């Protein structure tokens, strides 16, 4: 854990779910034996993005809503390095929702952690697409008129290859989820339900704690797509957590590229002067 520590002080509110997620990420990397120089951690903008300088490792902290394509581009350039991209529910289901759609469809091999606190924390508590309908929020004093986006149903409709749900109050479970996600071939979507003690007064830490259950303990088979979707979507009484669905048979995007078949090197190792004489000859 020490190799991932960093001198900067955390700036999250007391009780913020990011503390738990932060610890789980570091621990999962250490348990997998990945050194700080062997990982690339990408952050969107939001409270979670303030993790970017609170741990060690190669990191990137970019623009709101755009973390997925930057991380995917990095992965294409150097598939050897595991990539964990982080985004909030604002970035993922509003500003950059198109990127999520195409990342699942393309099955880029990377982990995406959805920091899901059901509101825009860093901009002081506006509603996100995952805030409950009718909930009064900053800039919506009369309650949200829009319907809550059914995020899990939406993700499952895109034929994902890995879907998990964690809870910021359960570090050991998050570690086991993240280790599996990092080792997954393809796009691993990890929905981390996290408490926001300052702005989320509806789905609080305690509220979540009362409802979450571990699907593994329940005997769930993560290869069962239909069952996985059903327990992911239905959160009316209990909230399923753990690895909900995994399909290891689908190749990642890079593996699908015919142009790269049979090549042992990766684009980062191939930057050099290329001779185009043969191509020029064909245009005479």
């Amino acid at each position, binding site marked *: 854990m020490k190799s991932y520590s960093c001198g*900067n002080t955390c700036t999250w509110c007391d009780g913020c779910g990011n503390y738990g997620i932060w610890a789980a990420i570091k621990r999962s990397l250490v348990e997998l034996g990945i050194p*700080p*120089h*062997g990982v*690339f951690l*990408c952050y969107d*903008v939001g409270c979670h993005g*303030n993790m*970017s*300088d609170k741990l*060690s*490792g*190669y*990191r*990137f*902290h*970019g*623009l709101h809503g*755009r973390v997925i*394509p*930057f*991380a*995917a*581009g*990095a*992965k*294409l*350039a*150097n598939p*050897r*390095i595991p990539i964990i991209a982080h985004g909030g529910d604002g970035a993922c289901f509003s500003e950059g929702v*198109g*990127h999520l*759609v*195409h990342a699942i469809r393309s099955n880029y091999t990377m982990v995406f952690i959805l920091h899901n606190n059901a509101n825009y924390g860093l901009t002081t508590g506006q509603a996100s697409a995952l805030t409950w309908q009718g909930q009064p929020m900053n800039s919506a004093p009369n309650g949200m008129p829009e319907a809550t986006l059914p995020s899990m149903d939406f993700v499952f409709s895109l034929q994902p290859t890995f879907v998990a749900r964690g809870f910021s109050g359960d570090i050991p479970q998050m570690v086991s989820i993240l280790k599996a996600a990092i080792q997954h071939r393809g796009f691993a979507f990890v929905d981390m339900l996290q408490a926001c003690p300052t702005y989320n007064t509806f789905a609080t830490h305690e509220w979540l704690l009362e409802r979450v259950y571990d699907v593994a303990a329940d005997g769930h088979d993560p290869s069962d797509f239909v069952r996985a979707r059903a327990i992911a979507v239905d959160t009316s009484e209990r909230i399923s957590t753990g690895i909900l669905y995994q399909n290891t048979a689908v190749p990642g995007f*890079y593996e699908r*590229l*015919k*142009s*790269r078949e049979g*090549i042992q090197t*990766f*684009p*980062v190792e*191939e*930057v*050099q*002067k*290329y*001779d*185009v*004489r043969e*191509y*020029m000859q064909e*245009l*005479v």
Partner: protein
Amino acid sequence: MNRISLKVTGAQGQGVNSVGEMLARGLKDAGYCVFGYREYMSLIKGGHSSYQLDISDAHIGSSEQMVNILVCFNHHGLERNIRDVKQGGIVLHQTLDWEWNTEDARWLQGHQVTVVSLPTEQVLHELKAPPILGNTFLTAVVWSFLQQDCGVLESLLRGRFGRKGERVLQMNIDCLQKACAYVASLEKAPFVTLPATNVRWSGHMLLTGSQAMGFGIIHAGCRVYAGYPMTPSSPLLSFLADMQNRTRMVIKQAEDEITAVQMASGAMHMGARAMTATSGGGFDLMTETLSMNGIIENPIVIGLAMRPGPGTGLPTWTAQGDLLLAVHSGHGEFPRCVLSVSDAQDAFDLMPQAFNLAEQYQMPVIVLFDKHIAEALYTQEFYDQEHTVIERHLPDTAQLQELQGADRYAVSSASGGVSPRWLPGTQAATYCAQSDEHSGDGSSEEGAQNASAQMDKRMHKLEALAAQLPEPELFTVHRGQISEVRNAVHPEVLFLGWGSTKGAVLDALLELTSDNSSLIAGYLHYTYLWPLKTDRFSLLSQKARQTILIEGNKQGQLGMLLRQQCGIDIPKKILKYDGRPFCTDELHELLSQFISPTSG
């Protein structure tokens, strides 16, 4: 210089490009410099389109507005294009029942234009050949009128259709023979005499600006290309995609332009050479990422293929309206480099340079080009690959061991604002590529002193870059010859431009100085547009009797930038913003107004 121009018109999808390409290839092989220019509308089938070839024994890099030969696939060309025909020119068409209205008939007679209606349909019927073979018939008729050897065309057809089977090939050869026989049977065939051939052209390539840029991108070691379709950048995406199984590049058609530029940025950050290209609207979407690359000091190369805006504008036409966009886009202040392609030569040469500059200065490099360059057909000699150097400016293994995370964005005035950059995944101290204002290791840092110091550091790179970039290139034109830059000679009339205008301006000046042997004209061409070098311009414009700005936009954007940077205003301007490129004959006429003895 002797030049002949020929325009093929017809409905999109009718074979206009096919005839244009066959003629271009044949004429280049025969020993001519060919310049091809396409016009078409933003639709797939049926729109009126044209393919023009300008043909010369000497180098040409532009089209003429008025043509010697007009070939019309259908009656639309007869309605719309006959006024494009020169005095004494020829119109070939295949609309047998066409009747000219009185006005057009009088115009044709007054301009001594010969009209020939071709029995294409009848010939195809006799040969039991499908309508597509009409392309070959038309090509061969034009070929015969140009008094070219039918054997040359035959071998071209064998090369082009040989793979499609004996029957297809034979039908093409039959069409060729029918065409030759038809022309021979004409009592008064309107033959056109081309200048003498020059064997050097036959060994040249015939390629579009997009292909030229594509070659440059491949040559420069770019390994990842992400793009989203938008004319006129799409041909570059298509070309690189078609080449991917040979180049082994990673080609990604992204879900939008933001994705394309973010992916290219991520790939470049990781250490590959990566690029994207788009047109104005797509570039607008990329500008937030442009700014992000500015603060994280990430090298990125973005191609910006200009077409007329605003909005969707004229999607399939050309413009130079995005210079100020390239220079000023993106929020906040950050350094960037803007280069501009002008022809098939620098379309290739600038690409390794763009990547080298991006990596040396860790900043975005924007490469401007336009629809005219992207789709024009150039006769181009083989590129010099010997002198290309790939400069990455990355630390070696020993240097990596010495690095601290805080070195990544360390403020040090000695290095011209450039701090060490090393790649994620390398065994070294780690850092954060931080889009928030940051301290040396990329930790978020909002202190006042740090904010100024980091801004100064980044902007300092612009000064170092400016010192490295060359001044604009001066072409001195005298007695129909372009001479090397001679500092002792100050052109009396100075023309100023950038981008694809170069070809037309130089062609026009060659003609103009042939007509006027005492004239020493200068053309100052800007390839490196930001940071903008102004010393040579200031000096030359002070010495010149007059200075004229030539640009393909409404406001004279280079003129605006020059005034911004050095205070010199250029009141005389030739500006064009109708979607069409400058043509030689058009410019010849416009430029001569400035050099007549009464002017200035």
